[in-house]
C-alpha cells in the first residue's frame, strides 16, 4: 500500500520535475554509463587483442575490435600441454574443493546448531577464535612441509577446508528452520546422521548454493598456494598460476621498452607467430572466462550471501 503510494508520488513528481532535476538525471545516467565503460573496457580490449593476429597486435592501436581476426592464439596456448593440464587441475580443485567444503561446513554448522549438544559452545568458540589470529605465512608453510603435503593435490583442499564465515551463515540458516522438523524426524526414529543427510542438507540448499559459489570462485582464483607449495610440481599447476608466471616474466622484461620489444619480436622468427602480449591476453581471457560467463546469472546469490554474512557476521 505504502509502496504503491510512494511510486505514485514519485510519478507525479516526475511530471513536475524541475529542470535541475532533469539535468541531474542526465549527468547521473551518463556518469554511470562511463563507469560501466571503464569497468568493462580492459576486458573488451584484452579480448580483442587475444582474437587478433599476434604480429599485428605489436603495432598497437587495438581497442574494441580485433583488426586481423584469428583464433590462432587460443589454438596455440591449448596446444601447449601445460595449459590443458592446468585447466584440468583448476577445474578439479574447484569441483572437489567446493563439494568437500560445502559438505563439511554444513556438518559442523549442524552440530553447532544443536542446542542440546554439550560441546556446542566449545566447538563454536574454537572456530570463531580463529577469525582473530593466524599463525602466519612461515609457520603455516613449515606445518604443510611437516605434514608432507607439499607436492600434493590435497594441499589445495585440506588447509582451507572450512571457513568460519561459511559456518556462521549456514548455522544462522539452520537456526531459522522450524525445530519441529527435526523433532518429527526424531519421532520417526532418525539419528543425528540421518537427520543431517535427509532433512537438513536438502532444506539448506539455498544457503549451501551461496557457500558453493563463493568457494568455487575462491578455488578457481587461487594461485598463491600453488606458488608457495607446488611451484616445482608442474603437473599440479593451475591456470591462475600459469598466468601469474607470464605476468612475472613481463614484469621482468618491462624494465625498458626496448627489452620488451626485443622479447616480443623474437617471436617473429617462427612461422607460427605468437608474442608475449598475445599470449598474456589470451591466458587472461581463459583464466577469467568461466567467472564472466557464470557470474551474471548467479549474481543474486552472491549478493544474498554477502547480505546474510554482513548481517550476522
Amino acid at each position, binding site marked *: 500500500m505504502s509502496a504503491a503510494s510512494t511510486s505514485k508520488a514519485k510519478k507525479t513528481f516526475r511530471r513536475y520535475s524541475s529542470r535541475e532535476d532533469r539535468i541531474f538525471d542526465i549527468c547521473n*545516467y551518463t*556518469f554511470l554509463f562511463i563507469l*560501466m565503460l571503464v569497468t568493462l573496457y580492459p576486458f573488451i580490449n584484452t579480448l580483442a587483442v587475444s582474437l587478433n593476429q599476434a604480429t599485428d597486435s605489436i603495432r598497437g592501436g587495438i581497442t574494441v575490435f580485433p583488426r586481423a581476426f584469428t583464433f590462432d592464439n587460443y589454438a596455440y596456448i591449448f596446444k601447449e600441454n601445460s595449459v590443458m593440464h592446468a585447466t584440468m587441475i583448476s577445474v578439479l580443485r574447484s569441483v572437489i574443493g567446493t563439494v568437500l567444503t560445502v559438505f563439511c561446513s554444513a556438518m559442523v554448522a549442524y*552440530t553447532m546448531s544443536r542446542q542440546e549438544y554439550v560441546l556446542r559452545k566449545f566447538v563454536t568458540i574454537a572456530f570463531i577464535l*580463529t577469525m582473530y589470529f593466524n*599463525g602466519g605465512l612461515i609457520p603455516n608453510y613449515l606445518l604443510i612441509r611437516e605434514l608432507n603435503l607439499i607436492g600434493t593435490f590435497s594441499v589445495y583442499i585440506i588447509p582451507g577446508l572450512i571457513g568460519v564465515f561459511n559456518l556462521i551463515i549456514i548455522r544462522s540458516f539452520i537456526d531459522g528452520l522450524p525445530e519441529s522438523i527435526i523433532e518429527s524426524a*526424531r519421532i520417526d526414529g532418525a539419528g543425528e546422521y540421518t537427520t543431517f543427510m535427509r532433512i537438513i542438507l536438502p532444506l539448506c540448499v539455498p544457503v549451501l548454493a551461496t557457500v558453493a559459489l563463493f568457494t568455487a570462485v575462491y578455488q578457481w582464483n587461487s594461485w598463491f598456494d600453488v606458488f608457495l607449495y607446488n611451484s616445482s610440481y608442474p603437473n599440479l599447476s593451475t591456470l591462475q598460476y600459469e598466468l601469474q608466471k607470464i605476468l612475472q616474466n613481463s614484469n621482468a622484461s*618491462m624494465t625498458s621498452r626496448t627489452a620488451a620489444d626485443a622479447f616480443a619480436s623474437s617471436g617473429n622468427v617462427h612461422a607460427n607467430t605468437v608474442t608475449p602480449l598475445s599470449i598474456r591476453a589470451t591466458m587472461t581471457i581463459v583464466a577469467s572466462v568461466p567467472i564472466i560467463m557464470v557470474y551474471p546469472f548467479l549474481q543474486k546469490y552472491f549478493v544474498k550471501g554477502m547480505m546474510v554474512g554482513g548481517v550476522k557476521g
Partner: protein
Amino acid sequence: MENTPVGTSPLKTAAGKPAGFWTKLFRQRSLVYMSIPFLIWLFVFKYVPLWGWTIAFQDFKPARGLFDQQWAGLKHFEFLFQDERFLRVLRNTLAMSFINLVLGFVTAIGLALLLNEVRHIVYKRVVQTVSYLPHFISWVVAASLVQSTLSPDGTINQLLLWAGIIDKGNEILFLGIGEYFWGLFGAASVWKDVGWNTIVYLAAMTMIDPAQYEAAEIDGASRLQRIWYITLPGIKPVIIVLLIMQIGYLLEAGFEPQYLLGNGMNVDYSEVIDIFVLKYGIAQGNFSLSVAAGMFKTVVSFVLLFAANHLAKRMGEARLF
C-alpha cells in the same frame, strides 16, 4: 537410561537426576563423531601454527628439529625496528591501507548515492551487475589487465597521446615510477571493488522511510539537497560502524596486488609486510626475522580488531536504540 535414543532432547533426562557431562556426551556420540574430525583439523591447521610464533624468539635453523633451537630473545624484533627496509615496508603498508580505506569509502558511498537516484530499474540492475563483476575475477587477472592498461602502448598512454598531454615516444611507464604506485594501487582497488562495496550502503538506503523524501519534495528540496539531508544521514550509522570495523584491518593492505604489480623499479613503494615476510622467509630462509615481522602484524591487527569490534558494538547499539 541406556536405551534412550541418541541425541534426545534434555526434557527426557529432566525426569531423572540431571545427566552428567560424560553421560550426555556419550548419548550425543553421533554429534561428537560429526564434529571431532573437524576439531582435530582446526587444531592442526589453525592452532598448531601458533606454536610457530616461538620461531621469532629463536635463531631458527630449518635443518634442526622444532624443539632443538637456540633461543635469541627479542633480538629479531630489535633488528626489525632498526631495519630501514622494514620501516619502509611498514610505511608502505600503512599508506596503502589508508589510501584504500579513504578511497574505498568515498567512492563506494558516492556510487551508492548515485545508484540510489536511478529510477530506471533495468538500467540500475545493469550498472550493478557490471560494477560487481571485477570483484569476482582473481587479482592475477586484474593485475594483468592493469598492467596492459598502463603499459607504454596501453590505453592510458593512448589517451594521453590523443589528448596531446604527452608526445609520441615519451610514453609514461607508470608501473616503473615508484611514486605513482600508491595511487595506481588505490585506483586499481577502486576499479575492482567499488561496485561490490556499494551493496551494504544500498541495502541501508532501502531502510530509509520514503515519507521523508516526499516531505522534502513538498518543501521544495532539490535532488542534491535530498541526498545531502536525507540519504546521507540515513546511512550514517552504517558508515560509522563500517569505518570503525575497517580500523581493525589497518595493517591488512592486501598482498596480491602489490606482489603482482610490484617490480624492481617500484619496490620501494610497493613492498608491504606480507611481501617482506615472503621474501625474507621463504626466499632467503631467514625464518626468524620474517616470523617476527608476521607476528608483529598479527598482534597489532588482533588488538585493533578487538578494539574496533568493541567500539562498533557500542556505537551500533547507541545508534540503533
